[in-house]
Every structure is written in structure tokens, then in C-alpha cells.
């Protein structure tokens, strides 16, 4: 690391806002949806639009709403007129990447207080269509994301000998956690493990109840510097580390079960945050799990379990809300998936945990939490680690 790195400005989260995620928000335009989340984040921070120096916005492909470069149209709704506005797009990891790009504006001291927001209004179009256009140069992503990821789940099961019941445990846990989160999309009050296991097989071995829903929703955060955090009336979450890593979609050496980019990204975040033993030192994890089996897979990829052992943590209840490493206390992507916002929701929920503001799904005494997102063909990763105390270095 170069010398200048040690003089980075501290970054704090002082405001968080989400919409109630639902299948279709027919009562608001895209502009209305994003403004709702931004307004809530400002209220949380006790700030006004005038306090914001720059806006960084992210979402997944423009085809998901049929709107090209929507930041142009959304400038007014987000109070960005006369301000810098950046639009990030890194596939499914975009919500996390967007927050990290915004954090860099503060860390570099280019701006003091930044609004960052990610959204998806899936009801405006059809995500399956958006991912399956016939194009001249590459094959379309056939049968949506589930078709792409199912073989890698099967490979994980073969490699580790995990019993085929593990996926349904994750789905059952996350859907129960979602009942405690007022913003979560799916509130299945009558959920049982048997119902998950009896749901139709979509892409073997992935069942209907082990997949994420299609949601409309937005998530916003206010990031600020040390001075801004000192003025914050509510407890801030402090950023201790953040990183992005990418690897090619397709090449002979790619491990789709545990991509190297995910391992490297986590290692970089832990190094920045001074984490030696993530399993012991991290109190809560908001992990990007669009298909239930990705919980045990990412537990290994992120260094919480040895290779082949992730499913054992899940099976033994360690990742339950009252376990000693709660994963997705919010209900996760399995319960709420406005695609472009899903990564930022992970980052924001991690921040809520260390601020002690997660409400009914609060992990007791959470001091350090990890937010995680991935995208593309499991090739783009973004993560941050936030703490209740400012970083010491």
C-alpha cells in the first residue's frame, strides 16, 4: 500500500432509507420510487438535499426498465441538479459497487457528504426478457439466472457431499427472518420447512421456494466524513474496509463454485479491517444469496468455513438469527430482490446492524458486520465491513 493510503478520510454511514419492497409499485414512477428511499435516508441522517455534495446511483441493466441511462431522467428527483452524478453498473454486484464508488469520493476528500442510491423497478419490464435478448455475437443467457447457476450448485453438492436438505434450511431461515423486517418483499406468515421442500423443482436442484422474488424497490445511504459523522444525531456505522474484484466470465481455470475473485475480495476487506479470524470477529453477515445454496457456498468463499464445510455451519444452525454467525437477518435476497438495489441493501443492512437500528431483526450486540454482493457469471464481487466504532488506523 502506498503512503497516501494511510491518510484516507474515514467514511461513515449516517443515513439509510429503503422502500417497502413489493412485486409492483404501481402507485409511483421510477422517480417517485427512488425519491422515497432517498428522502428516508436524509430523514435518518437529519439532513436536507442541500447538505448533499454528490450523488452516486446504481442499478442493473437498463433493459430491466427499458430506460437508457436513467440517471439523466432521475437527476431532478434525487436533488442532483447542479451536482456531480455518477452511474455505476457492475451487474448484480452493482448495489455494493455503487456504495464503494460513493465511499471513495469521501475517502479521497473530493466530497464531504454523498448520497448513494440503488434501485430496480422490475415491474416496468421483464427481467427474464432483459437477460435473454438474441444478439449477434454471444449466446443469450438461457433460462434466466437460475439456469446459469443450478449446475454450479450441483457441482458444490457433489464436491462437498452436502445432503440435499441444506438448501431448504436456508430458504426456511431467510423467509422467517423476513417476517421481522418490515421492508422485506416476501412475508410468508405460514412458511414451514415442509412447504419449502414440497415446492416445485425449477432448475434441479433449485426449488421454487429456494429462489429470490422479483421486486420493485430502492435503497439509499448517506455517506459522510469524520466531521459529518460527529454532527450525526444517530449512531453512525464506520467503514473499516471495502473492495471490488472481477474475473472473466469464461475461461478454463474458473472455479464457479468458489470463484477466486470472491476470495481475493474478502481477503482484501479483512486486511483493511484488521480481521484475522472472520468467523470469530464478525458478528453478522448480509450475504448475496439469490438461490439458497449460495449461503453454504459463500460461507466457504468468504472464509467463514473451511472448504467443504460451509453446509455444516448452515445445518447446525450457526447462521440462524440467534446463531453465533447470523447470515441475512434481514431475510436477504431470497426474500427481497430489486436486482440493482439488492447489493446495496446488503451493505445497508450490515450498517443497520452495527448502528443497532435493525429493529426486530437486530443481532444482539453486533459490533462488526459484513455486506457482500456478487454479479454476472459469479465474476464481479463487492464487499464492505462496517463497525460500531471508528477504525483505529
Amino acid at each position: 500500500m502506498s503512503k497516501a493510503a494511510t491518510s484516507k478520510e474515514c467514511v461513515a454511514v449516517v443515513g439509510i432509507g429503503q422502500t417497502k419492497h413489493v412485486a409492483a409499485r404501481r402507485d409511483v414512477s421510477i422517480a417517485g420510487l427512488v425519491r422515497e428511499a432517498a428522502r428516508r435516508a436524509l430523514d435518518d441522517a437529519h439532513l436536507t438535499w442541500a447538505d448533499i455534495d454528490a450523488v452516486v446511483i446504481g442499478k442493473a441493466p437498463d433493459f430491466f426498465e427499458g430506460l437508457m441511462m436513467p440517471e439523466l431522467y432521475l437527476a431532478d428527483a434525487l436533488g442532483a441538479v447542479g451536482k456531480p452524478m455518477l452511474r455505476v453498473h457492475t451487474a448484480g454486484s452493482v448495489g455494493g459497487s455503487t456504495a464503494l464508488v460513493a465511499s471513495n469520493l469521501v475517502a479521497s476528500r473530493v466530497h464531504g457528504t454523498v448520497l448513494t442510491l440503488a434501485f430496480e423497478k422490475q415491474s416496468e419490464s421483464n427481467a427474464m426478457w432483459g437477460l435473454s435478448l438474441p444478439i449477434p455475437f454471444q449466446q443469450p443467457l438461457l433460462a434466466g439466472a437460475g439456469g446459469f447457476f443450478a449446475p454450479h450448485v450441483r457441482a458444490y453438492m457433489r464436491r462437498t457431499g452436502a445432503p440435499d436438505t441444506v438448501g431448504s434450511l436456508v430458504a426456511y431461515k431467510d423467509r422467517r427472518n423476513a417476517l421481522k423486517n418490515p421492508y422485506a418483499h416476501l412475508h410468508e406468515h405460514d412458511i414451514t420447512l415442509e412447504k419449502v421442500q414440497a415446492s416445485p423443482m425449477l432448475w434441479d436442484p433449485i426449488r421454487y421456494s429456494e429462489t429470490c422474488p422479483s421486486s420493485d424497490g430502492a435503497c439509499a445511504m448517506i455517506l459522510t466524513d469524520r466531521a459529518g459523522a460527529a454532527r450525526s444525531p444517530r449512531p453512525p456505522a464506520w467503514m473499516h474496509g471495502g473492495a471490488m474484484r472481477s474475473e472473466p466470465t469464461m475461461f478454463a481455470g474458473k472455479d464457479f463454485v468458489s470463484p477466486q475473485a470472491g476470495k481475493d475480495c474478502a481477503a482484501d476487506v479483512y486486511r483493511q479491517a484488521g480481521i484475522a479470524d472472520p468467523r470469530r470477529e464478525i458478528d453478522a453477515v448480509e450475504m448475496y444469496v439469490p438461490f439458497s445454496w449460495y449461503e453454504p457456498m459463500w460461507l466457504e468463499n468468504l472464509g467463514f468455513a473451511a472448504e467443504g464445510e460451509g453446509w455444516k455451519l448452515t445445518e447446525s444452525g450457526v447462521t440462524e438469527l440467534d446463531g453465533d454467525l447470523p447470515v441475512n437477518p434481514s431475510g436477504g435476497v431470497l426474500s427481497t430482490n430489486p436486482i440493482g438495489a439488492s447489493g446495496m441493501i446488503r451493505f445497508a443492512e450490515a450498517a443497520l446492524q452495527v448502528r443497532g437500528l435493525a429493529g426486530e431483526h437486530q443481532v444482539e450486540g453486533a459490533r462488526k458486520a459484513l455486506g457482500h454482493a456478487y454479479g454476472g457469471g459469479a465474476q464481479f464481487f463487492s464487499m464492505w465491513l462496517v463497525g460500531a466504532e471508528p477504525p483505529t488506523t
Partner: protein
Amino acid sequence: MRYARDVAIVAFAQTDTLRRTDELSEVEMVMPVLHDVLRQTGLRTSDIGFTCSGSSDYLAGRAFSFTMALDGVGAWPPIPESHVEMDGAWALYEAWVKILTGEADTALVYAYGKSSPGEVRDVLTRQLDPYYVAPLWPDSVALAALQAQALIDAGAADEPALAAVADRSRTDASDNPHAQLKGSVPSGDYIVRPLRTGDCPPIGDGAAAVILASGDRARELCERPAWIRGMDHRIEAHSLGVRDLTDSPSTRLAAEHAGAFERPVDTAELHAPFSSQEVVLRRTLKLNDSVRVNPSGGALAANPVMAAGLIRLGEAAARIHRGESDRALAHATSGPCLQQNLVAVLEGES
């Protein structure tokens, strides 16, 4: 403002801009410019601290189009990397900020756009307010014509003045081997009054790449680095009805924050796809006749959408690298009628 570190553009490469490149995929279009900037600096992909790109799915006609371009970068072992769904000028901004944090000392920035597979005038209508404006399909030339007419009505230009801008640009482009439209080009018929064919940019495919480096690293990699003395970008309201189209307040704000008005520049590379937009930008930036404007020919000579802004930064830097400029302004735009604008001030070491 005072930045934490000195950062410079140390290498720039661009493809020829061509009307059609049916035989090339986007990856194949990007690869040569990536190799070119790496060769210029002697760096390998594994030496680069951060990579950032700019492009648009709507031009490519498919979702996640940038993922394939990344395969061409050779992102193995995995790299710190990001992407903006914007012109590559904004990717350069993101990379510059990343270097300012101290987390990287070098950055590779690239951008590409193929307009040929679709009708770019139609495609750009999808940028507009989706509920009230986009359903009417007002295209990019029609919107620019509104701006040109407003300028004429305000007495700031007339049709011969616009034609002179176009003529000067394409004459200058004669010296630019990558330009698409150069030399004596007739004004042609009206496309949308008052804009004639000659007032509008050619439609083309192209790619560009830049390498940034900080401090001493920049001096090692380049004989005369183009130091970024300031860079800022601003956006305006989307609705044309609430904007004075003869002015560009976002450009002025960005220029102020980039320090452009502190001392005169000798060169300006302006991203003005329409002749009338150069008039607006010159007025806003207070560029007098002593400033060499668009010696490359500018966007009227080659306008590969999503790369044209990055090319302005690259062309300005290249003039500094060659010792032809000491202080240059580079500008990029996005959105209808100059809605969003970026300004950078580049200097050679004096």
C-alpha cells in the same frame, strides 16, 4: 481545490472511428487499444492498480454487455475493477478518485461504443423521461435543433456561423488519422431545421483507452505526463422546458470546480456533437480566439457514442505529451442538449 495526490494521463490510444464494424465484436474492437496503451507504458495487466470502463447496454443491444469486454482485459488473476454506464470520461473520473484515495497508483480506463447495429437517433430517445417524453420518440437531432434554434433566436449564432464551426472541425480532422469525416464536407440539406447534415456528427463505431498514474510513477511511465490539475462534472435538470438551452450552467460549474478559469488554457477539446453546441460551450467556458479548439476535429469529425468524451481527454493529454500544449481543457457531455458535463484541466510540467 487541493487534491491528496498528483495524477496524470500517461498514455492514450483510440481506434479509427468507422461507420460500420460488422466484422468486429466489442471485445475485438477494444483489444487493440488496450494493448496499445499497455505497450506505450510497458505495463502489463497485472501491474494495473484499478480498471474502469464506460459503455452502454442499449448500444450493444444486450444486457451486461460490458462483461464480455472484461474478458478481453484478461482479468486473471482477479482485478479491482468497476464500470460506469456512461461515457468513458466518467470512468476516468472514477479511476482518478480511486487513485486519490491511495488505493491504486495506476489505472486503466477504456470505453467503446458501436452505433452501427441500431439507429442511434432512435436509441437515444430511450434516455428521455419514460412516462411523458420518450413515448413521443423525439430524437437526438430534433432536440439539438431546438437548442440551435434557441441560439439563433438569441442572436448568438446564425446558420453560416454554425457551418463555419463544422468546416473548421473537419478541416482540422484532416490531420487526425482516426477521424471518420474530414476535409471539405458539404453542409448538405436540412435534417431538422436549422441543422443541416454538416452540423451533425457522423455515426460511427470506436473505442479508446487511457492509462492514469500518480506522482513519480507517472514520470517513470511518460516523458511528459498530462497532469490532472482539476476535474469535476455536474448535471442539470432533465426537462428541456426548465433549462436555458443557450447556456450551460453545469459546464460552468464543473469548469469552476476544476480550476479552469484560474489561468487561460491554450487548447480545448470540447465534446460538442452538434455545431451549435460548440457555440454554447465556447460562450460558457469563455474561450476566446487564442484558444485552439478541437484540433482533433472533435465530435463533428468522429463521435463514437460512449467513447467520444474519453477521446477528448485523451486528445488533450496527447497534445501535452507531444509538447504542443502546456495547459489544456477537456470536456465531455452526456444526455440531451448538454444535460451533463465534465471538465478537466490538464497541464504539462513547466
